[in-house]
């Protein structure tokens, strides 16, 4: 159809001429803003950039965090340490002995209390904040120099800030061929000394925590109560 000037009504060209797209016509860019699901080239490449950045970050962070953290939060393996013949731990006495750890600086000190047919090993790590506790023969008690925490002969709290008694080590008595002599005592972690002889060896094992009734719990860090309302602050120990 012709318009008033004789041009084609649709594209404004003189009638009879080519009416399709020409090289000099600007190509209309459709940004697809109205259609957010349409994947334009820009959107695709933005996605590639973000995904690549995430992969790079993960590739760096995952190995290093695993490396730095995994072994720290694992429980140490159980091991038994021979600390000498039973003649070193006479009946009726509490003997102080150094227990060697995996390395020199993880050496610990245990107080081996052999009384009334039961033998227990008490760790000298104060249950308040971990200071080394001292044994006093005169009163058969333990006192911590840091904040005056006081424990009785069994390591139960009699005064001061500790939230629970002194931790204990598992003990075992074996003869020279490695067989156990006697059996566990009435309290968790103790050993009955009824049939034990002076040449049998005392072995110290892993540590555990107790409450004031000498019931056993998993090993807690110092400062953490094992019973009561506050023990729920430490659900994973």
């Amino acid at each position: 159809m012709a318009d008033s000037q004789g041009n084609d009504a649709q594209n404004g060209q003189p009638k009879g001429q080519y009416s399709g797209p020409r090289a000099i016509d600007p190509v209309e860019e459709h940004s697809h803003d109205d259609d957010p699901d349409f994947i334009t080239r820009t959107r695709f490449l933005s996605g590639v950039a973000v995904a690549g950045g995430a992969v790079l970050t993960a590739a760096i962070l995952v190995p290093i965090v695993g490396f730095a953290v995994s072994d720290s939060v694992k429980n140490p393996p159980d091991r038994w340490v021979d600390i000498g013949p039973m003649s070193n731990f006479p009946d009726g006495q509490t003997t102080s002995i150094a227990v060697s750890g995996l390395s020199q600086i993880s050496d610990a000190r245990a107080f081996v209390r052999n009384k009334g047919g039961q033998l227990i090993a008490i760790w000298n790590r104060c249950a308040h904040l971990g200071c080394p506790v001292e044994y006093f023969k005169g009163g058969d008690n333990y006192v911590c120099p840091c904040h005056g925490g006081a424990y009785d002969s069994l390591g139960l709290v009699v005064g001061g800030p500790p939230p629970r008694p002194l931790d204990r080590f598992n003990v075992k008595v074996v003869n020279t061929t490695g067989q156990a002599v006697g059996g566990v005592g009435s309290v968790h972690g103790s050993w009955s000394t009824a049939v034990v002889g002076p040449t049998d060896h005392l072995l110290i094992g892993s540590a555990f925590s107790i409450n004031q009734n000498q019931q056993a719990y998993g090993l807690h860090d110092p400062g953490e109560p094992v019973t009561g309302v506050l023990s729920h602050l430490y659900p994973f120990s």
Partner: protein
Amino acid sequence: MNRADQEAYKRDYAQAKKEGKPFYPYAIYKDHVVAVLVFAGIIGMAIWQRVAVGPPVYSATSTFEPRPEWYFFFLFQLLKIFKNQNALVPVIMATFIIPNVLMVLLLATPFIDRRAERRISKRPFALSVGIVVFIFMAWLTYQGETGAAPISGGTTIPFTGITPGSAAAAGETVYLTEGCTSCHMVKGVGGQVGPNLTTIGTAGKSATYSGKLPVPVPGATGPTYSGANWFVLHTECPTCAKPGSAMPAFASLSATDLQNLATFLNGLGTTYK
């Protein structure tokens, strides 16, 4: 601060800068002078007070008393204040709650105080908080520095009135070697689990106990124990002299030791000071 105060400050500060001086040299020369003095102080201290090395690490010790660096004394003392362990005042009050509350308040200071006034004389709340915090930290640091009372036995405590070789001197030796300082304080030395014994001789203690003593001591027979005899009874059997006492029984001491110790304790505050 509302928008008007903020704009007023910006105008005022722009005026201050206009009437001001260039950063170089007028600020930098002051910075450098003070920094030189500080460095001179550090190097001077390094030369005058040489840094030593203590005994090497021994993790199986049982006699070492841990202490932190001086700038952590105020936190260390806080642990001594919150000593008792109960649900209302647990250990974490001093180790976790108070330090974290203080840190959060420190970080949030500009959001807590949003008033426009800057002169300290017109900010009474800020001034009092600042003074209280400073005194609190300075006093706790000072206490941490001086308050390390040795608890292990074997330390001598100087007393007036004790003649060497007397029963009281022997009693003082028993007191120190049996670890009494672990729970009791005398003249500022010792722990605070049990009562302070500095003037215990003036307390006039007396008790009735009709049972037999674990270690018979001549002159200390029941049923009434007073004066030095009360100390004999109490040391051997604390629950006999004071029911409900948490003190362990020192029933392995000899009769002579018990007598000497009792003489010593009975005179504390009167004859021996």
